[in-house]
């Protein structure tokens, strides 16, 4: 068999595993797509609608428009992470991952295929949330910046999801990362407030949270308002995405916790 033929077979295999992952997301849509949309809409209704009447504006922006970018980042991050970690954890825990581990797929193809489901889930859910909130979008927005940030967010958190799925040996470990790391990071990432309005140590805590920069860059894209440099935030986020993906591939290649 020529190298080219092997490459073609590996590409077909990657598409098949990607198809399996995206199909899983779509067929379980009531568990994968609907809940984050409901959650985000509830956040918008409660914080933007009910509470927003009292807060009115943050940094000159209507509160609903202010929190929307953060909700989109939270949705992409949470869903991308949850999907990849759950799918890989299930495959590993139930043993059927051996089907792909014995295949000729290269390690980066395997990691990327598992990430695809998370990316799809995060981006579809956030797109739906964005559609619902479209009437509140700020004039003069730069949707390309927001879309790029959300895509990078998806890449970062789906890679982290793959790493967690590989690492977790029990459902408790799997849930621990989601509940104790991802959710708090999202909540203190400046979704609901401006970091510069906070006193110490909260302001510093917010600024050392990497999600803050993703939220800030998305907010810059959707509202024009930002506290940090958008270019720096996007560059750092892209570097983090590359590092997370490289780490995920390296772990798959080593067979860490996947193979004895």
């Amino acid at each position, binding site marked *: *068999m020529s190298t080219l033929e*092997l490459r*073609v*077979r*590996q*590409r*077909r*295999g990657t*598409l*098949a*595993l990607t*198809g*399996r992952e995206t199909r*899983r997301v779509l*067929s379980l849509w009531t568990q994968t797509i609907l809940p984050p949309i409901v959650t985000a809409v509830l956040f918008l209704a409660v914080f933007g609608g009910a509470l927003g009447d009292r807060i009115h504006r943050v940094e000159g922006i209507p509160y609903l428009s202010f929190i929307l970018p953060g909700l989109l980042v939270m949705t992409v991050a949470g869903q991308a992470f949850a999907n990849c970690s759950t799918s890989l954890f299930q*495959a590993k825990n*139930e*043993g*059927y991952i*051996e*089907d*792909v*581990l*014995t*295949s*000729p*797929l*290269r390690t980066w193809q395997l990691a990327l295929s598992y990430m695809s489901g998370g990316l799809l889930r995060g981006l579809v859910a956030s797109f739906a949330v964005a559609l619902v909130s479209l009437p509140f979008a700020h004039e003069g927005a730069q949707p390309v910046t927001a879309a790029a940030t959300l895509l990078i967010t998806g890449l970062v958190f789906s890679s982290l999801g793959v790493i967690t799925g590989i690492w977790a040996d029990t459902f408790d470990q799997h849930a621990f990362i989601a509940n104790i790391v991802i959710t708090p990071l999202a909540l203190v990432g400046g979704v609901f407030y401006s970091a510069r309005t906070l006193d110490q140590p909260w302001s510093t805590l917010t600024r050392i949270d990497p999600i803050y920069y993703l939220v800030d860059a998305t907010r810059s894209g959707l509202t024009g308002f930002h506290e940090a440099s958008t270019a720096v935030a996007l560059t750092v986020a892209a570097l983090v995405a590359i590092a997370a993906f490289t780490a995920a591939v390296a772990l798959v290649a*080593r*067979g860490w916790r996947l*193979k*004895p």
Partner: protein
Amino acid sequence: MTANATFDRASAALLVERLTKVYADGTRALDELELRIPSGCFFGLLGPNGAGKTTLIGAISGLVRAPAGRAFVFGHDAVTDLESRLLVGVAPQEVHLDRFLSAREVLAYHGRYFGVPKLESEQRADELLEVFDLAAKASTKPNRLSGGMRRRLLIARALVHRPRLLILDEPTAGVDLELRHELWRYLRRLHSEEGLTLLLTTHYLEEAEALCERIAFIRAGRIAAEGTPAELTHRFGGDRLEDAYVEAMRA
């Protein structure tokens, strides 16, 4: 590398050279194991639990982290050359099937993971469902199949991408007598009509005797003896393979 060594690697379905695997807890599952399975042979691997059978299979098929030593599948390095994966079909000892897919999809997706085009993979899935008498359960999820059906589906899955070396790790463990004989018939057909090389591990000595042309006894990660059933019986004395096995394990 000499020309003879290259020829030997390419002509053997499986060539294992000083394969050693030590697990994190210090267990030496394979200890400089040497093995050669000729192309087209129905080969049996017999040994007690913990002898290294499943580890050897994992090392060949990518289910065990890179061991020391070398293993070649039809001349392709089993660890570094991913083309070797296309040549091997594995039906593991434990039945693990993707619960999100139907029986037909389990087969079709497996073929596609191995690079078989979608339509061809689906046709092959239908063909194998017929052969293994699972056509009526094509759209059933694996967890709703009986134990015997799941076992058959696992063997069918190993065949979807048309491997040249089929590895069956205790395929008849916990299987009723009727199904066992049914599987025997099918394995014989695969071997004689399709020219597949088969590596079978089993605890049933009568199974190995009935099916295998050559047999190796494995003990503590090493091959203790290897030959035809008649050769082994002759070498260790006794009338049956069972006597030779007991004697080899004792030696």
